[in-house]
């Protein structure tokens, strides 16, 4: 298996096969190709063809097709399985969206229970309370009040505790 694509909420295992004599096929046998036609790009799947625009950045493929934009996330098999097993017991609390810290409710050394509020963040007129992903002792708060961060940034680390 080569890896996994995430489109919306769904994860799809991905592999493409080489077609005899060059070219590529989907596992179901349909030949596929990307063609440039007069400044536009087209994807052919078997008999069907769709106009589209594609932009690739890192592990994301952005595609605009049939009037809709999609972000297709690619994870190779190693990254996917490594991430898959990262359990909910993980004590890393990450930012669900980019924004700024409104207020910090804990500091290093505090004991927290699962679900306890650890900070309040704001992301353009939207305030969200960030909660502890597990019970334990706060090992570190990695952002200060007023600081901005990107989505996925580590905000708080919670350890096993004493």
């Amino acid at each position, binding site marked *: *298996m080569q890896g996994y694509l995430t489109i919306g909420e769904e994860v799809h295992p991905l592999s493409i*096969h080489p077609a005899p004599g060059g070219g590529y096929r989907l596992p179901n046998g349909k030949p596929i190709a990307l063609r440039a036609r007069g400044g536009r790009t087209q994807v052919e799947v078997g008999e069907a063809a769709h106009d589209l625009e594609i932009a690739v950045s890192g592990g994301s493929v952005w595609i605009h097709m049939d009037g809709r934009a999609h972000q297709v996330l690619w994870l190779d*098999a190693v990254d996917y*399985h490594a991430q898959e*097993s990262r359990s909910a017991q993980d004590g890393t609390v990450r930012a669900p969206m980019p924004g700024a810290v409104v207020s910090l409710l804990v500091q290093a050394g505090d004991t927290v229970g699962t679900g306890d509020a650890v900070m309040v963040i704001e992301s353009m007129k939207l305030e969200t309370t960030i909660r502890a992903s597990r019970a334990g002792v706060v090992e570190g708060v990695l952002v200060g009040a007023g600081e901005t961060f990107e989505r996925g940034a580590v905000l708080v680390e919670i350890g096993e505790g004493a």
Partner: protein
Amino acid sequence: MRPIRSAIRTDSAEFRDNATHNRGLAALLAERQRAVRHDRPKRDLDRLARQDKLTLRDRLELLLDPGTPFLELSTLAANDAYDADVPGAGQLTGIGMVMGREVLIRGDDASVKGGAWYPHSVKKIVRALDIAIENRLPVIHLCDSAGGFLPLQSDFFPDRYHAGRIFRNQAVLSKMGVPQVAVVLGHCTAGGAYIPALSDYSVIVRGAGAIFLGGPPLVKAATGEVVTVEDLGGADMHTSVSGVADIAAASEAHAIAIARETLGALSTPAKTAIDWAAPEAPAYDPSELYGIIPKDSRVQFDMRECMARMIDGSRFHEYQPDFGPTLVCGFARIWGYKVGILANNGVLFSDSALKGAHFIQLCDKDRTPLLFLQNITGFMVGQEYERRGITKDGAKMIMAVAGASVPKFTLNANASFGAGTYGMSGRAFDSRFLFSWPQAQVGVMGAEQAAAVLTEVKVRQLAREGRSLSDEEIAAIRDPVLRDYREQSSAWHATSELWDDGILDPVDTRNALGLCISAALNAPIPETPHYGVFRM
């Protein structure tokens, strides 16, 4: 090269009878292989599920490059041993594609007696690693074994080609610079621990994989120490404290993905180049093979007809077509690769033996791999032939076979008896791969001949004592011999004992040979061939 012109009448009764018979054998082969691959007692499958383990077949599919072929070897090993209770000898071996490289894959089947090693299991593993050495194929080990099956240890431990040979072969592979990646998906206990230890790279699954010379029960019995599996030989300990394994993985899928990535990171040496042209499908339908192979194996058939259904475009350039006609020699292509074919159309005489020896040398100089299509009952016997030196002519052919430096491939297409087996590169002569067709037989002589000889010996012995035998008494001597010989010379028995690398459905032969030739080219062909002395 011009195509062979077939003389077969596909609408004849004989063709149809043969086809029915051979299709039946092919179906039987398919069913037996299916059962060996997939039928397991429910309790064994349940145990795998409880342990959160994938089946070996699932592991294989995760490992292989999608959309690529897999040639499984010795699928039916041990089918005629241990009351057929150890399917495939609890091992999977085969040649597949991982990250665009041909590799040899071998794995313990934990759903067969916990993956325990029986004598046939050890033989299968040793054979697989021999193939890896001869063809310079990287090896991926999927390790998940309960260890050796101790009640039979004298049949798999002490001898030269027993279990120790596995580790010796691993060391030789490493010395040759041929990489091995071990994926520890279950326990590697005692001897089994050396497989990852002797592999260049190893991945171990946290919570499931373990490597130790003695498991917790043995440790407790030996020293009284009480320790858990994880602490004694688990992933975290070995990848961070002892260094016995390289990377810990969170799941089986993760481990296999890491193994693939590891292999992909290694350099791929260039393959040996031989004469090659764009492949061409045979001009005749391969399924016609079912109608060509006689249902009675004593009936002669023209091997060229079989070849026409297996070689590119059915094209064949025959060598010395009018000399030594019982051995057909010539050049053909299989999946584009040029090969030199030697095929039996009758017993071997002096002229055919000499022709064979000569042709082998031609191919050797030409750097053309050799393909032996066996249908041989032996060399001709009789005073005239002995006086003409058939024995030394046969010896010359054997000398040429043994000395050939190009890769050799052998197919037992029907019969492989006596010295004919040797001259036609039988098991002892280091063909890179040797396969059988379902109806094929191998033995020192044919069953009827053996039964006749042994019966004759017994009759004469009793005659010296003054006794003569009735027909029933003769049958009583002859029939058991006949039955035993038939059993022991059948392809099913041969493959069970790993005297071949697997039984092929005739229509699969072309693909199998194509993959074998391609795999063989991972090893170099020595520059200058040389042989022992040809008794002239």
